[in-house]
């Protein structure tokens, strides 16, 4: 009756945003990220006062900044994770275009902060590194292209994305910023691998790398010395690696105690590249293993969700984002334990970082948006009797 008088009450054909978000989000990965961020703040309390004192700030200047930027990053992450994959793709493509132009204009308007490589825009209160924002954007764009190339009669997306990848790698290498260049290349490579790279090509590349490495080792004294130096068990204790190794050894299993560590006074990058050494020294192996487990948890939870994903674009974009995230963490920690040659790379969410933290928040937000539970059309399979 009421309906006849007042017309049918409008029924929302979509689920409310927040409940749907909460129902579908990858809660495990999200909590891991939040815990990592909290650990980062905790370690920042220990690791950054020496630097703050050196630069003439309050002891917890960097912790406050980390909290502000981290808060912004978490908000960005949550907002991004609420978007639909299509919206994420659209915004990411736009963001990629902006970041690409910004990267291209760096030589004209950028600054090097006296570090020898022009990578930043100075905004007064903070600096902005376009390549940080370019990375997730590029992953999405490249995933879009790779996915499109899988359509019948689709565009040659592999070639396009490869061309784009090489362009960006060259631009980054010219700054020079080999770390970011390698990450971009790695991200594209992983997506290409998941998109179905021919196994022969992969084996060929692996063989060529080994062959070239052997040739270089035998013929280039410089290269051989670098490798030998890395492989040798002796560490010069006055290098950053030496301090980091010593800090890990000092820490042992349970650490020397909160605030008791010494390495933060010796290492200029204790709050960024070598924060894991501070963690190991003050809190011991326990915390380090926890951090490793958290990163591994994010990566594996995301990958297992992506395995069930049927949309090629979402699958590829999610893979690229999570692998980039995981590899960055791996390289950072691998350097600290001398599994990898020294390369400056921050530990995502744990290391101190301003705009890079924001970019990482956006990237992980995208990842969370891609890994949300959504109907995968399994019912079609069931109906067609193609259950596996």
């Amino acid at each position: 009756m009421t309906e006849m008088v007042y017309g049918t009450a409008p029924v929302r054909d979509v689920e409310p945003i927040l409940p749907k978000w909460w129902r579908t989000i990858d809660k495990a990965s999200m909590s891991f990220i939040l815990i990592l961020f909290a650990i980062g703040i905790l370690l920042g309390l220990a690791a950054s006062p020496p630097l703050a004192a050196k630069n003439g700030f309050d002891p917890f200047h960097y912790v406050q900044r980390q909290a502000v930027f981290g808060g912004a990053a978490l908000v960005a992450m949550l907002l991004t994770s609420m978007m639909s994959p299509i919206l994420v793709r659209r915004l990411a493509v736009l963001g990629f275009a902006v970041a690409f132009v910004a990267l291209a204009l760096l030589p004209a308007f950028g600054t090097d902060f006296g570090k020898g490589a022009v990578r930043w825009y100075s905004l007064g209160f903070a600096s902005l590194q376009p390549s940080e924002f370019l990375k997730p954007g590029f992953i999405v764009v490249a995933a879009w292209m790779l996915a499109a190339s899988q359509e019948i009669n689709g565009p040659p997306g592999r070639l396009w994305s490869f061309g784009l990848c090489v362009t960006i790698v060259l631009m980054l290498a010219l700054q020079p910023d080999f770390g970011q260049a390698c990450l971009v290349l790695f991200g594209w490579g992983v997506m290409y691998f998941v998109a179905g790279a021919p196994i022969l090509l992969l084996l060929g590349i692996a063989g060529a790398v080994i062959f070239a490495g052997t040739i270089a080792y035998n013929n280039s004294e410089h290269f051989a010395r670098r490798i030998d130096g890395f492989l040798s068990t002796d560490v010069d204790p006055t290098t950053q690696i030496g301090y980091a190794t010593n800090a890990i050894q000092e820490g042992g299993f349970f650490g020397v105690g909160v605030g008791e560590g010494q390495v933060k006074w010796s290492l200029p990058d204790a709050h960024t590249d070598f924060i894991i050494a501070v963690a190991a020294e003050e809190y011991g192996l326990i915390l380090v293993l926890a951090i490793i487990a958290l990163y591994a948890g994010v990566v594996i939870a995301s990958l297992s969700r992506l395995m069930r994903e049927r949309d090629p674009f979402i699958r590829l974009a999610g893979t690229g984002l999570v692998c980039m995230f995981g590899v960055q963490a791996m390289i950072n920690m691998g350097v600290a334990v001398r599994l990898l040659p020294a390369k400056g790379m921050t530990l995502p969410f744990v290391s101190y970082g301003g705009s890079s933290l924001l970019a990482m928040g956006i990237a992980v937000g995208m990842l969370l948006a891609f890994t949300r539970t959504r109907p995968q059309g399994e019912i079609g399979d069931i109906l067609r009797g193609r259950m596996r």
Partner: protein
Amino acid sequence: MIRTPLRPLARILEARQKGENPDAIERENIRLRHEEMRDKLRVRAEQRLLLLGIMFFCAFMVIGARMGDLAASEPAEPRAASGGASIVAQRADIVDRKGRILATNMETHSLYAHPQQMIEPERAAEELGKIFPEIDVADLKKRFTSDRKFLWVRKKLSPEQKQAVHDIGEPGLLFGPREMRLYPNGPIAAHVLGGTRFGQEGVHSAEVVGTAGIERFYDDVLRDPAREGAPLELSLDLTIQAAAEKVLYGGMKIMNAKGAAMVLMDAHSGEIVSLASLPDFDPNDRPLPATGNDPSISPLFNRAVQGVYELGSTFKIFASAQALDLGLVNPSTMIDIRGPLKWGKHKIRDFHNYGRELDVTRIIVKSSNIGTARLAQMVGATRQKEFLEQLGFLDITPVELQEAKRAKPLLPPNWSELSAMTISYGHGISTSPLHLAAGYAAIANGGYTVKPTLLRQNSAKYGPRVLSAQAAEASRAMLRLVVSHPDGTANFGDVPGYGVAGKTGTADKPKPTGGYYEDKVIATFASIFPISDPKYVLVLVLDEPEIHAAGELRRTAGWTAVPVAAEMIERLAPLLGLRPAIEPASLAGITLSSN
């Protein structure tokens, strides 16, 4: 335009015949193919994602394991930057021929200050003044309170001094490790060892650099890490060196000489067993070099190597030996010695008038200038120069001392006949006592040159032969007569049982302004012992000796250098392991009795 094939062609043709729209069939076909392809790709992607996940898991596991491995290992003791390096940088020890240490290193500390870290700079300066009386406290206070960031206070500290500085309790006073060179025997062999100083200095270490003597000559060798601390073995014998210096010092004092030098050389290998120069110094605390024009007034001056003197009549034996060798004379050939011998404006005189003529042996025994000049005339200037060059008198001596490089013999600019005559009795040529020792070694060892060396040799090292064995033996017999003959100039030099042979030389000292002093001489005795089997050459030089003896003021070598050398041989020969030859006692003094 790319032509896309119509698939499946059979059905499309059929549809066309029936007038149906073939596009629907084609789209349906595309959709089916697409789905099939996506399924295939998805399965592959699933596998590859699983592989990725496993790889990431393994990588994180490896990092975790490595972290655990590191955390379980003991932290390495932080190695100081200088720790490992200082062992290889250590300077090699110097030892004598029997392995006794002549120079070694000692760990000590330097003291430096960081004035800006000082709490009470004024008090620190005063306390330091009490510990080191030689420090200028007012100056130190000024420097401690200035805005300097770093200053050296002392280069070397004894352990007691270090403790005392510790007890000041001033955090701005800091110690740096130092390795200092130590000469445990003090002034013994000072001129051979030379000395060291600190080269480039850092807070954590300082380089030790040789400044003189063998430390300087072999600086690179001693610092060479490849030696791995193997000591440098010298030919010196510490016992003999000590005894020789003692005797030389006593002799210098008794003879009122202002300086003295001696060289004891193994005639067969050229090894210098002992080399001394007085006055000497302590290489642990090397005096500053002399500032004046005359370096010889400094105790650093090595008279045995660095000093070049006209060594006078000691040279005469070379003239006679060469004349014998060339067969121009034999020991009993009579030579006209009527004097004075005139050559142009020059007249050559003898110290005494020895009569009309003397045989060659007596010319040497009595030391006749005219006689040797005649012999030199017979030999000729060219051959004489050649002979002396072979004996090493014309070049700097090759001994391993830095100072030797500066001691170039003074030679006549033009080796005329007159020069040859004066050189034959040791005037007009200035060489070091070491040169003379090497020359006498050739006579002692039977005619071979030797290279004077301070490094231990294991066997005889002969150079080329310059004299026939006969000539050398005849020369030695003459030299023996100089000592043993009652008229010989060195008759005070006989040491019973050791058969000393030798030749004296007394040369007036040249004035720096030109000409010669009347009352200042260089007295030299060059000797060979034991004559029965010549092993050693001893050259002893006294600078300006004078002594009242037998009612006269005596300066000649026979009264000054010879007794000192005799005393020295008497002391050194047993130390050298020589047995005294028991001379047959004369039967005349013995009364045969029987009961």
